[in-house]
């Protein structure tokens, strides 16, 4: 009887905690008005969506699934589908805040992604909503400047020179970041502000592997406030890389065509040699037969 009571109370505790969990889930996720009104400093474009997609697939799919497929991992509270109204009816600022800080099982991504990377993810999430129109921030009449970028490489000091203009006027204090694009990702060269002449210098390791002509694929981003400019350019910076096949010279690991002669010769000579002997013996059976008959004739 005693045990029975125990069971009862255990079941009761379980039920309670389930209810509590539900209550917690139904709790509003508090977002202050200021946070809610926060807007992306960048206009969402295809490139942001693409980068967001990569981050999303690496960090979010495991719980939230493919946006629009409602295939998120079942947990309490449910993570929800980023393609659904649950997400899409929220403001960008609210999503930004929630991704940054997390809650319960939803991890905090503040330390994982820089702000612009978080906006990339939001751009990706928004790409599943055809009705979405990105709100333009109220700039109080200030115009967003359009930047032009010019790149050069100073061989003497191995520096990438980035010059930022707007309407031919050099722009100081613009945040410039530069990357080298590789096969699997991008290498950050540095993040720096332009000087009073509108120029930023970034170190480039001249030993970086380039393509066959010694070119690196450089990506430069310049931002200040809501202004953003990007430039992709291939520049001759490093020594040409002569690509060698990883198995060159190792014919023993290569395709059959490349098999070393000594191996072919010794393999086939051995095998054919041994089989020749075996056939010699099998044909020899005739001699054994003949030897039996020959004598017969002589005796008869």
């Amino acid at each position, binding site marked *: 009887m005693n045990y029975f009571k125990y069971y009862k109370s255990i079941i009761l505790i379980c039920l309670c905690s389930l209810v509590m969990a539900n209550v917690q889930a139904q709790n509003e996720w508090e977002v202050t008005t200021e946070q809610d009104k926060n807007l992306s400093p960048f206009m969402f474009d295809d490139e942001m969506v693409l980068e967001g997609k990569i981050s999303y697939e690496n960090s979010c799919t495991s719980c939230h699934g493919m946006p629009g497929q409602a295939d998120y991992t079942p947990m309490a509270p449910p993570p929800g589908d980023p393609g659904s109204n649950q997400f899409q009816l929220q403001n960008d600022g609210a999503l930004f805040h929630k991704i940054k800080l997390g809650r319960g099982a939803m991890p905090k991504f503040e330390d994982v992604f820089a702000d612009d990377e978080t906006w990339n993810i939001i751009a990706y999430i928004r790409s599943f909503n055809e009705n979405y129109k990105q709100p333009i921030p109220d700039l109080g009449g200030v115009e967003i400047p359009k930047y032009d970028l010019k790149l050069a490489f100073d061989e003497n000091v191995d520096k990438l020179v980035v010059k930022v203009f707007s309407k031919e006027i050099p722009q100081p204090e613009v945040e410039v970041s530069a990357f080298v694009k590789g096969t699997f990702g991008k290498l950050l060269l540095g993040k720096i502000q332009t000087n009073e002449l509108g120029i930023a210098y970034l170190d480039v390791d001249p030993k970086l592997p380039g393509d066959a002509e010694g070119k690196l694929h450089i990506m430069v981003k310049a931002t200040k406030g809501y202004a953003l400019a990007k430039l992709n350019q291939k520049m001759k910076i490093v020594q040409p890389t002569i690509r060698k096949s990883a198995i060159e010279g190792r014919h023993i690991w290569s395709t059959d065509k490349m*098999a070393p002669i000594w191996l072919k010769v010794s393999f086939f000579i051995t095998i054919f040699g041994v089989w020749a002997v*075996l056939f010699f013996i099998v044909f020899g059976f005739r001699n054994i*037969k003949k*030897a*039996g*008959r*020959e*004598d017969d004739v002589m005796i008869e």
Partner: protein
Amino acid sequence: MNDTLSKEILTDDQIEQDLLKNINWGNKFKLWLAFLAVSLIICLYFYYQQIEHGLGVTGLHDYVSWGIYISNFVFFVATSLIGMLISSVLGLMNVSWVKPLARIAELVAVAFAMVAGLIIITDMGRPDRLLNVFMHGRVQSPIVWDIAVVVTYVAISILLLYIPLLPDIALCRDKLKNVPKWQQKMYKILALGWKGKAKQFKLMNNYTRILLILIIPIALSIHTVTSWLFAMTLRSGWDSPIFGPYFVSGAFVAGCAAVIITMYFFQKNYKLDKYITIDHFDRMGRLLVLVALVYVYFNINEIIVPAYKTNTADAKHVQEMLSGHESIMFWMVQLGGLIIPFLLILFRPMRRPLPLMLISIVILTGAWFKRVLIVVPTQLAPYYPIQNVPEKWTHYMPTVPEIAITTGSFILVLIIMSVLAKLFPVIPIWEIKEEINHNKN
């Protein structure tokens, strides 16, 4: 002078009668064969399942892609090597006491080598693509070398069984008049018109001699190449330059045990105690001690050298063996399957037929599990850790179809040996006659 044979004076007639006695289709044998056949059909049913559903019915997966099939293959190749040791090495050295055993060793070799080839096919998900191995194989691949040598070894072993059998087949042709028609006809064809002429003997001896010499390098390479399948792969536990001799020495242990077991059953069933004597068991026991010693020596090398270098992947592999996850099987195999039996056989009473046969069964079982220990654990410890895969890929457990198919390979060996032993005398009659005449003079 051969002192292992019975001291009784045996006439030629007596010898022929004794040694041809096993050639008949008695009811007991039919029952035995039927039992084997039914068991084989059951196993074949599981193979049919595997063909139908693919290798998914086995416990194999992306990490352990070589399971008990390949372990079993290595074991079979190993066991078959004994034919070379007994009939060739000892035969060429004129060790006369092995003569009555040479054919039994060859029988073991042929049966195990033939089935070894089939076992590789059971490990293939698409056996219908077997021919591709020959058509598109890379000559650099140890797998191609392996297939080439296994096929060659089977051919040589069959010839080496057949050619010294000629005089005895002729004897069967002449003496056995109450066997079925087809059997008489078979003897007639296979005897190659044997009349026991001097020239025929000369040819036979020449051919046998060529084969005996040829089989030594081929037998060594068949098992060395089998070991290279592993040793040439960059994996902890396999990446070892002594794998060739290590495998060959292990092969002789398994083979000796298999021959002793076979000897025992032939001696008991066919009442051959005048020809396979207690003395034969004693000497086979001593041979087993010798080869086991060599094998122990290689085992020590295989373990102590990597274990000394504490922090390498190979050392971790050895650690797993000595005290980790695989330790129970490891110590069962090393102590139970090798050291203790080997110490026991050092004592003369343990080399009497029955105890020796029982010890051999233990050794052979140990040898089988030893192959599993060589093949499987390495694959579970790749250099890149196993991550983000289904939980069951982190271990390996053979399934029922897999075990049944493996059992089937043993049944097939038993069928081949039983049938061959019913068609031909298991002891070379003409050699025994020569030997006894020689002793008499």
